[in-house]
């Protein structure tokens, strides 16, 4: 199914039919209907008595009028679609066929020449539903072949005689040859009709999901109509059974088809009352999340997708502000852009059949305008929030990398140099073993260097826990637990290594938790548990101290919360007075 982007604001200028044209066609329709009726009643073979031929004739007249007026309604309601015009042409062709009831030679010849065109016209109409255009080379070939078979072979058959005195084309009298041509003609048209059914079936399956209900019913009716035409033609050819019954059914199906189409239109029209329902929906359900469902209901397209335009980001996004891709030309979905006061708000990806109900689309999108605008703001806000979260994560991450770099520099630079210096002094000390004062001063200098190294080690460790990066969280936590002021029960069950940022955050969390323990908690024990869950990691530090810790007490907990939240996690602190403190961080992590 070829779909194209169909933007409302950029619709090609559609020529709305002029009143004069509508009136002219309408009157012409009435006139040809009247002519057909007159021909039927005055024709000796048809109108002589009230019987089946007359009823069939009346049905033909009905079909002419129904197609012309159905086409007119379609044309005025769907000026963008060629379908209305096609229906009108089909109606007039039906009239041309009824000319064969005329006693006039020219009229009879013309009418008879088009006799078999009718089923092909219906095939054309059904295949062209709803856009009025045939899709693809095969369909065009099929219809062209149908017209050629119906008209050319009919002319050949007429030239072979057997049509009575009004046939102007009779060249010779050859009943046997005429019969063969007739068989070939009817069987060919029959096969072509069945091919049409195949096309409809393939089209329906390929669309992947059922068409919207009204369209699906119509398409099924078309398929049925085409099958019956095929059966009728073959039956008539070989004088099979049920000819009369099938003919009746065919005429009725074909006669009802325009009615079905007009009803479909009226449904669309009625659907505009769905706009009212939509407004009620939107009044009751103000949450933007319900907007898509409400639109899907109003447009009767459960596959509808809604995307909001975020001008600052230059992209479409879902309600949560995540960028989404719209169907592109060539996809089986069609996109309608929604504007408000000249600014793009959103886009709806929908079933292509909605294109034929553009005024419903317009009415619905207009009705949902304010709600759409609200939802767009909502999406925009979410996108900003998401961006903020991303940038916070990047800032924390950049900070972590920078601190990691500084730690590396200290480790490889100052610390190594001081150790080397201390070693040098030590060797000097050995050389000056006889100079008591010198060795004493060198030893003192070495102690100073030792103290500096101690301090540097603390600074470097505070900058970045290198052992976490190098050896993992479990190893690093052992030192924290060993250094704590109270006995710590440590349990780490995280399996293989976690992402480094997560491990570092968990390390700081435990480090800060145990440090607070020493400073404020007056606890006698603590437990540290790091657990891998299906969706992330849970870090818990619990003590039996005095409690009463809160984020406002120090920058420590706030900083931890920032770190955890930057990773998309959450830090919670329970610290009721006298009941100990529990720090719990949950951080998401892909399994």
């Amino acid at each position, binding site marked *: 199914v070829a779909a194209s982007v169909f933007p409302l604001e950029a619709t090609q200028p559609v020529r709305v039919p002029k009143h004069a044209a509508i009136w002219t066609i309408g009157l012409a329709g009435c006139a040809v209907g009247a002519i057909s009726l007159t021909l039927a009643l005055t024709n000796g073979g048809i109108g002589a008595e009230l019987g089946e031929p007359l009823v069939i004739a009346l049905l033909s007249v009905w079909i002419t009028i129904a197609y012309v007026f159905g086409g007119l309604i379609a044309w005025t309601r769907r000026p963008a679609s060629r379908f209305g015009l096609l229906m009108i042409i089909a109606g007039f062709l039906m009239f041309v066929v009824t000319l064969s009831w005329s006693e006039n030679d020219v009229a009879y010849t013309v009418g008879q020449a088009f006799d078999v065109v009718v089923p092909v016209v219906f095939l054309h109409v059904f295949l062209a539903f709803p856009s009025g255009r045939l899709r693809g080379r095969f369909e065009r070939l099929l219809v062209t072949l149908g017209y050629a078979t119906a008209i050319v072979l009919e002319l050949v058959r007429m030239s072979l005689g057997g049509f009575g005195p009004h046939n102007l084309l009779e060249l010779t009298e050859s009943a046997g040859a005429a019969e063969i041509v007739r068989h070939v003609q009817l069987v060919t048209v029959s096969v072509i009709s069945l091919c049409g059914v195949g096309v409809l079936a393939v089209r329906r399956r390929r669309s992947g999901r059922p068409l919207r209900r009204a369209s699906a019913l119509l398409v099924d009716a078309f398929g049925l109509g085409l099958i019956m035409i095929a059966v009728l033609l073959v039956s008539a050819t070989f004088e099979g059974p049920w000819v009369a019954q099938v003919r009746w059914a065919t005429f009725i199906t074909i006669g009802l088809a325009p009615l079905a189409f007009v009803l479909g239109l009226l449904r669309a029209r009625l659907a505009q009352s769905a706009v009212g329902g939509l407004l009620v929906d939107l009044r009751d359900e103000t949450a933007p999340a319900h907007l898509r469902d409400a639109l899907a209901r109003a447009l009767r397209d459960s596959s509808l997708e809604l995307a909001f335009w975020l001008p600052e980001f230059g992209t479409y996004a879902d309600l949560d502000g995540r960028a989404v891709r719209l169907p592109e030309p060539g996809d089986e979905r069609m996109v309608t852009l929604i504007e408000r006061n000249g600014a793009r708000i959103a886009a709806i990806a929908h079933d292509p059949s909605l294109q034929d109900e553009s005024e419903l689309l317009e009415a619905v999108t207009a009705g949902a305008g304010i709600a759409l605008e609200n939802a767009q703001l909502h999406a925009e806000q979410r996108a900003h929030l998401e961006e903020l979260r991303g940038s916070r994560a990047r800032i924390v991450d950049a900070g972590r990398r920078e601190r990691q770099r500084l730690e*590396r520099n200290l*480790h*490889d630079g100052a*610390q*190594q*140099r001081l*150790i*080397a210096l*201390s*070693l*040098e*002094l*030590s*060797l000097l000390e*050995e050389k000056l073993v006889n100079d008591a004062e010198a060795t004493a001063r060198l030893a003192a200098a*070495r102690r100073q*260097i*030792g103290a500096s*190294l101690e301090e540097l*080690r603390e600074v*470097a*460790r505070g900058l970045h826990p*290198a*052992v976490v*990066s*190098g*050896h993992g969280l*479990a*190893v*690093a*936590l*052992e*030192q924290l*637990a*060993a*250094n704590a002021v*109270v*006995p710590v029960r440590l349990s780490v069950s995280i399996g293989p290594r976690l992402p480094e940022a997560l491990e570092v955050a968990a390390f700081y969390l435990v480090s800060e938790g145990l440090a607070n323990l020493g400073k404020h908690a007056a606890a006698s024990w603590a437990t540290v548990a790091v657990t891998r869950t299906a969706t992330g990691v849970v870090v818990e530090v619990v003590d039996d101290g005095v409690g009463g810790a809160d984020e406002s007490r120090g920058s420590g907990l706030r900083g931890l919360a920032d770190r955890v939240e930057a990773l998309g996690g959450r830090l919670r602190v329970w610290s009721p007075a006298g009941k100990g403190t529990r720090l719990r961080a949950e951080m998401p992590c892909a399994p």
Partner: protein
Amino acid sequence: VRAVIAEDSVLLREGVVRVLADAGIEVVGAHETADDLLRDVRSRTPDIAIVDIRLPPTHSDEGMRAALAIRADHPGVGVLVLSQYVEVGLAMTLLAESVEGAGYLLKDRISDVKEFVGAVERVACGGSAIDPIIVSTLLSKRRGEGPLDGLTPRERAVLELMVEGRSNQGIADRLVITLRSVEKYVSSIFDKLGLPSGGTESRRVLAVLLYLRS
């Protein structure tokens, strides 16, 4: 004693080579990377490998992995790990199976030449060397919890030196007491901690370490 070294800082590598050479320890290879070290350990079968815990290319756990590989594949080669950080977790990873021929020292210890050379010789001969800070951290971990608090200050001092990997004679020299008193203290410590006092010195150290860690 034959030693190989892996240390990425040129300054310290040369310093260590000089100190060891001065002490009569033959340095048969001094390298920057763990791979070079492992090759030397395979081809030259030294008595000891001295490994910086952070080595190129990523400076994360290359040194530690090399140390564990030597422990596993060359039980006859002592491994002395040097680190700039006190990490009980790493020390215990290295010593988890046995303390024989294994050591974990802060890099600062290099400058205390006599102590450092002593530790190298101990590890090279199948003994152990655990940094005093690690030992005191482990001891403080069990503070306030029964048996350790029952030790006299003298017993505690003996325990610390013992866990550092010193022999009874080494402890006696250090504390300037007789070998017999050291043995008396040791037996009293094991009684108080409820640990069996038999076996080699290395086994004793491991028993105490596991007790402290649990």
